[in-house]
């Protein structure tokens, strides 16, 4: 019984046969986003062309929908989620629809449905299930037919708002990244409000895949008597929200460990009502997958005030240390850091320094005195915003930004939010975002879609009687008068890091604005919303850029070897699989989303002629 269809060791030996599937959201239990397929390689990738395009038929332009889904492929069937969160099974070789399931019954066209990054597969004998979450409900479907499984929960559904060890009433609660399976459990994170108003806690839970019953819960905001409880002053643990895993998890099946990447506690930008370090906010946590008990943890940001969530699951890798293999856990962050830990103990494999951080002058706030920073690898995103950071794409843009900067606080990373307005860089989209990182085991190389876009965060006193002391003016990108980021480009990049040495291999811009290119500017890159995958063919595949292109990049050099225009922005992470002897690379082209380009409803699969 396993949803991982072949043991990892066998995969390495039988690369041509196994991993023809893409059975997990991030490729495999270790979330490496790596495919051992190599039919498509550096010498023939220029011949890649669309093999089929599947239209889900449910995108919408106002408000714009998006697709963040990475489809999974089991056998010859692909399972995907659509812009309005329908689950659809299609033939992986042709894109022909087999079945679809709509989790929203009745007329619900006039409401926000959120986003979804895909589904989870589980099997035991002939019992094969698709598990996914929409609207805060965990659904179990028959993989063959798409029909709900009546014996699971209540008629195939578990209401995730229940059984959370806190009554969350009507507070928003959902799951956007697919859960992970370990034996007969599905482990789920969550997403919720992160504003100044009440929000649900981000406790992580495991449910029985057969019955839907809760099997364990890990309090990410610890209860009395639990480790870390003392990091929440007073009774703040009772009301504080979030500290949630919204970017996914990874699983070490052999060791029976599940690895969490937790987000910031709420309210994101003022911690006066949650004084203390706020464990397990912003922490990598290793849990016993069978029981939910903590094995080790590391907090990457203490008492977060910048929305520096860990936005993506830890990646499980094997490194070479002193000529010997060493199993490790790698966490990329919005702050532009790469933390590397020994897998069983959590011991850092590169030194981590505690650097002094500035205190806040906002009433009621008390920042952490220090923040952890890895000495190696070097940060892959700029560490703060100064006058030297200001855009240079034109004298007009530079002058405009410099004038605005006079009124804003700025400086090194971890400059606290203020009533004056503070420039936040790395920004709310990283550094790294939910696209995370891909790892090529043969090259020991980590590939990270990287953003370099500053934001401005301004706090304001809350209105009288609000029930909380501080509010904020919203999420505002720091831009020039033409809408380009206020920082010197490149604004979106692919970073490659050799994890054995800790050295950066390359960093290349990804994406472009045609009007800036026509002005003779070097490639600026664009903000990247989506992830990369690596393949044994020596390639990294990446969409994510605002120009709507899908690219193949040489793993060894960072050279773009092939690119094509998608029908809409590819704001998702691709997948690669093989069916009937042919390798495919598929990506969703859903547009919309944070890049706010025209929406689409396509999944496009590419192959060689």
């Amino acid at each position, binding site marked *: 019984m396993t949803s991982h269809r072949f043991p990892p060791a066998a995969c390495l030996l039988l690369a041509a046969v196994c991993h023809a599937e893409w059975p997990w959201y991030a490729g495999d239990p270790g979330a490496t986003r790596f495919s051992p397929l190599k039919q498509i390689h550096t010498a023939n990738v220029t011949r890649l062309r669309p093999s089929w395009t599947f239209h889900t038929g449910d995108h919408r332009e106002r408000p714009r929908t998006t697709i963040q889904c990475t489809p999974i492929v089991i056998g010859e069937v692909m399972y995907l989620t659509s812009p309005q969160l329908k689950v659809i099974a299609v033939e992986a070789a042709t894109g022909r629809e087999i079945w679809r399931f709509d989790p929203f019954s009745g007329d619900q066209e006039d*409401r926000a449905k959120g986003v979804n990054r895909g589904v989870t597969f589980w099997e035991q004998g002939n019992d094969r299930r698709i598990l996914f979450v929409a609207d805060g409900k965990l659904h179990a479907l028959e993989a063959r037919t798409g029909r709900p499984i009546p014996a699971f929960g209540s008629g195939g559904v578990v209401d995730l708002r229940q059984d959370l060890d806190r009554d969350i009433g009507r507070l928003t609660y959902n799951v956007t990244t697919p859960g992970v399976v370990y034996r007969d459990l599905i482990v789920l994170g969550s997403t919720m409000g992160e504003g100044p108003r009440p929000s649900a806690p981000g406790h992580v839970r495991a449910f029985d895949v057969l019955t839907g019953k809760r099997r364990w819960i890990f309090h990410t905001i610890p209860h009395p008597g639990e480790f870390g409880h003392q990091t929440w002053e007073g009774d703040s643990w009772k009301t504080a929200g979030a500290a949630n895993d919204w970017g996914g998890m990874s699983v070490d099946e052999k060791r029976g460990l599940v690895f969490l990447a937790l987000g910031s506690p709420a309210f994101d930008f003022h911690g006066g009502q949650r004084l203390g370090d706020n464990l397990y906010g912003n922490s990598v946590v290793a849990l016993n997958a069978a029981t939910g008990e903590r094995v080790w943890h590391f907090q990457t940001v203490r008492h977060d005030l910048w929305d520096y969530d860990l936005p993506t699951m830890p990646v499980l890798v094997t490194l070479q240390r002193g000529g010997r293999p060493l199993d490790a856990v790698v966490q990329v962050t919005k702050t532009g850091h790469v933390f590397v830990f020994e897998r069983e103990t959590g011991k850092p494999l590169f030194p981590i320094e505690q650097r002094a951080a500035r205190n806040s002058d906002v009433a009621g706030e008390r920042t952490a005195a220090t923040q952890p920073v890895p000495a190696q690898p070097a940060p892959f995103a700029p560490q703060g915003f100064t006058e030297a950071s200001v855009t240079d794409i034109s004298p007009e843009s530079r002058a405009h930004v410099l004038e605005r900067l006079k009124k804003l606080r700025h400086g090194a990373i971890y400059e606290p939010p203020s009533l004056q307005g503070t420039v936040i860089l790395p920004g709310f989209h990283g550094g790294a975002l939910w696209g995370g990182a891909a790892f090529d085991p043969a090259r020991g190389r980590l590939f990270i879609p990287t953003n370099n876009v500053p934001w401005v965060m301004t706090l304001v006193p809350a209105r009288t009687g609000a029930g909380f002391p501080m509010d904020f003016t919203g999420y505002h990108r720091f831009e020039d008068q033409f809408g380009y980021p206020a920082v010197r480009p490149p604004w979106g990049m692919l970073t490659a890091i050799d994890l054995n040495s800790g050295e950066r291999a390359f960093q290349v811009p990804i994406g472009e604005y045609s009007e800036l290119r026509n002005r003779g500017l070097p490639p600026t890159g664009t903000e990247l919303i989506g992830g990369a995958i690596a393949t044994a063919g020596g390639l990294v595949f990446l969409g994510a850029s605002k120009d709507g292109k899908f690219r193949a990049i040489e793993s060894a050099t960072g050279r773009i070897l092939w690119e094509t225009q998608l029908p809409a922005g590819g704001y998702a992470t691709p997948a690669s699989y093989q069916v009937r002897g042919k390798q495919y690379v598929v990506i969703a082209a859903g547009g919309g989303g944070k890049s706010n380009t025209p929406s689409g409803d396509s999944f496009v699969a590419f192959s060689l002629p």
Partner: protein
Amino acid sequence: MWVFFSILVWQQPLPFSHKTHAGAGLRCADCHTLAAPGRQAGLPPASRCMACHRTIKAESPHIALLAGYERNKKPVPWRRLYRLADYVFFSHRRHHVGGGIACETCHGPVASRDVLARETDLSMKACMDCHDQTSASNECHVCHDRY
């Protein structure tokens, strides 16, 4: 003042008076229907107007213009006064039909105006203030897809 309002009148393709029509007994929903899914309160097609104006003031040059839109099956190119950002979910059905919120709350005293102007604040802050006052949720997900 006359010049000011005249400019506004001629910014619209026809000098339509909400005051006159409300005074004649028409209600908002008689013209601005909530077609499924009910996110938007629609603008009436010219045929809807002509159902009455085939006989009422049929000699007016403006009604002749209106009849032309109907004949050519073209929508009247009204200039929108209120338009929310395209990343906002707002449902007229949920607020008006479900929540019982009067049209005037968001659109001002339309029934007493010959010429419409944007009279109310439909900023995010105004929406959130109203949600606070009515104990409606102010979580991001309520109005925005969380990406």
